[in-house]
């Protein structure tokens, strides 16, 4: 029999096992092709790659994906070979050399790989338009949706070369696995102990301590602590995770075994002992998968939360659809024309003075640097003036009431530290003292100033009369007035906003348009979300199928046990329950621990990023709510794989 015939026959006979292998291979090819095709897509190039930041982000992402795909393919290939140990040993027994067996397996890999390459690229071509549309739709504020369907020869070419080289590496690594087989294992394979690990309570505690410390540092509310601790936290948690799976979990299993009345229940006895027995070989895989799931869920949850908050963040930063100060006389008519040409109605328009004051106060220091010097000026509002602006703004801020002799202090980058220092500060005006009693983190009424004060109505009037509050500079020239505008469909029309920008830029003191801010955020975060989605789905599918392959290998080795158990009277329901209990922890522990890791990572991300973006009392809950969507998706995929694995496992041991 020629070796090619044998290879084809093997594939036919192992068809059911090959299906999952084939599926994951095809998915890898699909991923690679889609990514390369995206990088070649003209619209995508226009939208992103012109900017160096985005380009390096996309490239970095591509490299991570490819490295991971390679790791995944090689290790699932090796598991697959191990699952076929018996068959391979029989070839060896009949005198086939390792080289020839390697050649046979290599041939099988190439045949299956080639088919996967064709299918993966085919599916990739089929979905390439859709993917490009999704990417552009979530990243561009005004994407019209006109992408032509295209087949990209360069992407096909690179994908093919990439995978043929990966297949070759797989072949070599397979050969290494075969060389490790001892022929004698064929006869005693089932009796060899894989080496249980007794575990150690000290290492269990240490692993929990390491992870706990990491969690503690990550959840510290101080953003500078979190930023400095980022790398140590990563190291603590990763080391803790590996330690937990290698030494901690075996110890936990040992403790479970001690509770006899529970452990000696039939299902528990069989499932726990067999799981404990495999801990050593699967511990590292589970740890790796935990870390990868944590990375993937965090990436996607971060992206998703950022993305979902872009619109809100836009208005929390800018406040209105548009504002500008200075040049009202010449500009307003031109602006009305533009709005009219675009058939867009202005829903609100309000123009007001920008008052300033320079009260005396004690120098406030943050560390060594002077935060507010004694000459600092403040933007000043009366209660009613402030409340009018707030009512026009699209942010979530509420109107305020200020008592006589008190003031509210506003600063866009307010921290707890600054808050503590500012509250109680006495502002000394020429014949009146006002104390700061409350603070607010916002900058939407500052219009060019750094800090803002809101005063009681009467105080404001008195100070204005006194000349403590001014609307003119020292030489008597009036400060530019500010105009805020809201209009219909502010975030949709690129053209309207381009024209507005054109007349505003250079002709006014300063201006902000919500659309520009929104669009820029969307480009950055849209890309982050897309990358997060893509990466997460790759990680998710691959880690889950890696577990699947490992468990198939185990099923192959545990077959005789189930045969024996049936002989002594295990019925099929019990068998199903044993298998379910046997496989459940393999999937659920990495998933859960990964999600817990990710929840703390989100806490850190909340401290550094989100708490600045989402101005609610406890932004972490908002973040968690968004993240929960992604955790659920992850859970569902793992659930599906768990059921597939369970069914396949039951088939093998039958």
């Amino acid at each position, binding site marked *: 029999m020629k070796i090619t015939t044998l290879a084809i026959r093997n594939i036919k006979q192992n068809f059911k096992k090959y299906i999952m292998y084939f599926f994951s291979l095809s998915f890898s090819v699909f991923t690679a092709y889609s990514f390369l095709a995206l990088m070649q897509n003209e619209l995508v190039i226009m939208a992103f790659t012109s900017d160096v930041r985005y380009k390096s982000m996309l490239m970095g992402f591509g490299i991570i994906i490819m490295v991971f795909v390679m790791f995944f393919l090689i290790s699932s290939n090796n598991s697959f070979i191990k699952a076929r140990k018996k068959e391979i040993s029989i070839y060896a027994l009949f005198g086939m050399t390792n080289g020839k067996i390697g050649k046979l397996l290599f041939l099988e890999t190439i045949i299956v790989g080639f088919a996967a390459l064709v299918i993966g690229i085919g599916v990739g071509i089929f979905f390439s338009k859709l993917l490009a549309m999704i990417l552009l739709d979530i990243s561009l504020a005004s994407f019209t949706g006109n992408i032509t369907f295209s087949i990209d020869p360069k992407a096909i070419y690179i994908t093919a070369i990439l995978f043929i080289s990966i297949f070759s590496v797989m072949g070599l690594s397979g050969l290494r696995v075969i060389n490790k087989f001892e022929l004698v294992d064929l006869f005693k394979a089932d009796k060899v102990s894989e080496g249980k690990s007794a575990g150690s309570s000290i290492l269990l505690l240490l692993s929990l301590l390491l992870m706990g410390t990491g969690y503690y540092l990550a959840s510290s509310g101080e953003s500078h602590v979190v930023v400095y601790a980022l790398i140590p936290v990563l190291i603590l948690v990763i080391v803790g995770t590996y330690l937990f799976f290698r030494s901690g979990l075996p110890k936990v299993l040992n403790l479970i075994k001690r509770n*006899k009345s529970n452990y000696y229940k039939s299902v528990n*006895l*069989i499932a726990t*002992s*067999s799981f404990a*027995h495999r801990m050593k070989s699967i511990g590292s895989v589970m740890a790796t998968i935990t870390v990868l799931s944590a990375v993937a869920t965090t990436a996607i949850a971060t992206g998703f939360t950022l993305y979902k908050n872009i619109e809100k963040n836009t208005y929390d930063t800018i406040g209105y659809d548009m504002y500008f100060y200075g040049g009202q006389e010449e500009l307003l008519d031109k602006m009305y024309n533009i709005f009219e040409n675009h058939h867009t109605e202005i829903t609100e328009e309000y123009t007001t003075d920008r008052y300033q004051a320079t009260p005396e106060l004690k120098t406030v220091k943050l560390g060594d640097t002077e935060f507010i010097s004694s000459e600092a000026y403040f933007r000043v509002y009366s209660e009613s003036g402030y409340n009018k602006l707030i009512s026009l703004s699209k942010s979530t801020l509420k109107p305020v009431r200020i008592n006589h002799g008190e003031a509210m202090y506003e600063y866009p980058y307010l921290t707890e530290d600054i808050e503590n220092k500012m509250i109680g500060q006495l502002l000394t005006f020429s014949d009146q003292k006002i104390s700061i009693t409350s603070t607010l983190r916002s900058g939407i009424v500052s219009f060019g100033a750094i800090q803002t004060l809101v005063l009681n109505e009467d105080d404001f009037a008195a100070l204005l009369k006194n000349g403590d509050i001014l609307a003119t500079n020292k030489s008597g020239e009036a400060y530019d007035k500010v105009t805020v505008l809201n209009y219909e469909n502010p975030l949709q029309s690129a053209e309207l906003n381009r024209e507005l920008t054109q007349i505003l830029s250079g002709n006014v003191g300063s201006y902000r348009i919500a659309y520009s801010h929104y669009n820029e955020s969307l480009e950055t975060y849209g890309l982050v979300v897309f990358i997060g989605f893509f990466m997460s789905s790759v990680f998710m599918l691959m880690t889950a199928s890696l577990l699947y392959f490992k468990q198939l290998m185990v099923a192959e080795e545990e077959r005789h*046990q189930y045969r*024996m158990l049936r002989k*002594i*009277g295990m019925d099929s329901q019990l068998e199903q329950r044993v298998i379910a209990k046997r496989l459940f922890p393999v999937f659920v522990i990495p998933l859960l621990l990964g999600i817990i890791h990710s929840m703390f990572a989100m806490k850190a991300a909340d401290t550094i990023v989100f708490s600045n973006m989402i101005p609610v009392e406890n932004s972490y809950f908002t973040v968690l709510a968004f993240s929960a969507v992604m955790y659920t998706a992850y859970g569902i995929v793992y659930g599906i794989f768990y059921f597939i694995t369970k069914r396949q496992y039951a088939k093998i041991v039958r």
Partner: protein
Amino acid sequence: MQILKVENISKIYGNKKSSRQYLALKNISFEIKEGEFIGVMGASGSGKTTLLNILGSIDKPTTGRYLMDGKDIATLNKNQLAEHRINNIGFIFQDYNLIETMTLKENIILPLALKGYKANVMEDELYRIAQDLSLVEVLEKYPYEVSGGQLQRAAACRALITKPKVILADEPTGNLDSKSGKDLLDLLTFINKEFKATILMVTHDVFAASYCQKIMFIRDGEIYNELFAGNSKKKFFDSIIEVMSVLGGEGK
């Protein structure tokens, strides 16, 4: 008291309509009484293992009836069969078939665990038997840490712990050296006498067979001859060899 009754059992392998069918057992009938120690001998392919599998309800006969305590086993469904196996039958296999991921203790109590016993009841049962089989010191060890003889004793212990009506032993001495083999046969005899266990043992080994009270010889799927042990073990041994040589089997 009659414990097991086999009536006209036949087993045909292969498709009934094709010409490739193979008759493993032909119209076999016999009875086993409580407390008997019976040997089944025959050449390879004579149908010994098929018979044992049918008695163990792992396999089903093509025709014929098989009654245990007057109940027809063939009428039971899959799950009832599993229950029947836990309650009534103990297996001892040639290659022990202990689960290597469990300690000997866990292996032995496994059938009780399958029956859903409480932990303390199981341990009581275990120590009662483990003492008799001198396994107490190695109970916490794993199968790969103990000797073949201990493994076989643990397997016997597992078969006994449920107090089954019948113990089926498939070549139990096949993997043991002569000393351990003799120990195991003494053990089976001890179980037979002490626990009043009914034992049916399939074997090639004439020496092992000479421990039985009755031997059935099977040839080409039929019972060819039966021998009963007399007072002299030597005489019994010689007559077994005689039948085996007529059978063309593997008598030593």
